[in-house]
């Protein structure tokens, strides 16, 4: 485990062409890491995330991605992800290859990846056209009963990036609240980078909150507010009004680009990004 700045961690672990999962199911979305990937100009990434959310809308709109593995690509409770839509509907800023699943299917794929099994299985994808649309959704026969069970290839990202409430100085990571498939996505990856709200001498007693032990963590970066505009339970709430405003900010390419240049490309790090939003529409 290395204790790095976010800039150093992204430079070392996220390379052009890599398969990258920034996980966090609505909660603990690693926005700061996504912005740093944009600042460093990464290209041709295979992005993996159950819910692309605003963070992948931004990365796709800025031209970082060539391929997307996902299961639900909207702005939750608001509507569309306009940059994702433009990439799929018009190939702008570049075409985006889709590897589309259901939540249950992606969860099974992460579990298989974490266990280093070749595929995940589930009673799923029943009666859906997704099977015809995605050749990676297949089925296997149960060797005991003969039943057909849906199968999806394991997900093993080159690097998974998570955000958590805290880590200790050894690099043990604790997160609590809605935990999505973060543990599975983290353990499925070849490298695991975690941004945290705070670094402490000793973690509080775990009480079943998820602890990723230091020897499965590649790097920890201290990044307060790193999930904003998503949230960190116990630290700050989800900025639902920002999610609603994003619909207008991202609706056309010019407005999106101007916003990204001002707040992401035009800021050196996440602290400056947060400061740039104070008083901004």
């Amino acid at each position, binding site marked *: 485990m290395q204790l790095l700045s976010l800039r150093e961690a992204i430079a070392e672990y996220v390379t052009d062409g890599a398969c990258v999962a920034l996980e966090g199911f609505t909660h603990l979305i690693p926005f700061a890491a996504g912005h740093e990937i944009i600042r460093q100009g990464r290209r041709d990434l295979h992005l993996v995330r159950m819910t692309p959310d605003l963070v992948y809308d931004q990365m796709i709109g800025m031209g970082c991605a060539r391929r997307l593995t996902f299961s639900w690509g909207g702005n939750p409770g608001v509507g569309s992800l306009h940059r994702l839509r433009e990439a799929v509907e018009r190939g702008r800023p570049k075409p985006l290859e889709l590897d589309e699943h*259901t939540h249950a299917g992606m969860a*099974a794929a*992460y579990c298989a990846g974490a266990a280093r099994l070749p595929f995940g299985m*589930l*009673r799923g994808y029943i009666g859906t*056209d997704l099977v015809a649309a995605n050749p990676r959704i297949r089925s296997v026969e149960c060797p005991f009963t003969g039943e057909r069970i849906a199968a999806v290839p394991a997900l093993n990202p080159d690097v998974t990036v998570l955000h958590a409430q805290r880590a200790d100085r050894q690099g043990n990571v604790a997160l609590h609240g809605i935990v999505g498939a973060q543990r*599975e996505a983290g353990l499925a990856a070849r490298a695991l980078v975690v941004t945290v709200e705070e670094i402490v001498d000793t973690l509080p007693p775990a009480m079943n909150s998820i602890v990723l032990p230091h020897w499965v963590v590649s790097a920890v970066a201290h990044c307060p507010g790193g999930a904003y505009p998503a949230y960190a339970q116990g630290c*700050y709430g989800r900025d*639902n009004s920002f999610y609603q405003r994003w619909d207008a900010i991202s609706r056309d390419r010019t407005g999106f680009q101007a916003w990204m240049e001002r707040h992401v490309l035009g800021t050196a790090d996440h602290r400056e990004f947060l400061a740039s939003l*104070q008083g901004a529409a």
Partner: protein
Amino acid sequence: MTAWTRDEMMTVAAARLLWDGCVCFVGIGLPSAACNLARLTHAPGIVLIYESGTIGTRPDVLPLSIGDGELADTASCVVPLPEIFAYYLQAGRVDVGFLGAAQVDRFGNLNSTVIGPYESPSTRLPGAGGAPEIAAHARQTFVMLKATPRSFVPALDFRTSAGFLEGHGSRALSGARGGGPRAVITDFGILTPAAVSQELELSALFAGATAEEARAAVGWPLLVAEEGETLAPPSDVEVSTLRALHARTREAHSHPVRLPA
């Protein structure tokens, strides 16, 4: 009696289908409002599950997303996402799945993926999320969407989630263990599957709505059940509870978030 809108009646009609103690897997938007209205009125013991893994949640305001902190704060427990889908939903422990969609067809199949061809869609919709497995495994599903000829269509652009497939028992052969759609709640009334064909037919109208209006709003020749009913208008308690819920929600979502220093 308080004046009410069709949108309010739609939520009230959906809420009335839920019973106290039922275990309900909740979609975001209209279903979430209906499920919480049921909890705040006649079904205080309803167990609401959101796909983010929050079980038995009792939010004071409606969440904007399926993973708002409000849902975790008020849940009886929060489990990892692979667990909610595998150990609860797939295991057959969910009574009701409550879904929305962009399109529904006459057999209650749903599209939330694309308008137009998959490879070159005219409109890319958010996609499946949890819906296909909810539709397959919940013991029954309720579907909520407003009716227009663009939403109630003769043929889906893409079948994301299975209803009764081609009807006439075809679902039973598909491997789906749940019972399929029991009701589609829309803004003039409720459609339910006919006994043998499993085709959706108009079985209940809101007060003031007509079968002619329903036929005009649906993109296939809509059958009307022989013993259709007219639903009682929303009670004062239903209307005031729903409005208070929406008012609390608006207020909560307008609060500025204090950024960490």
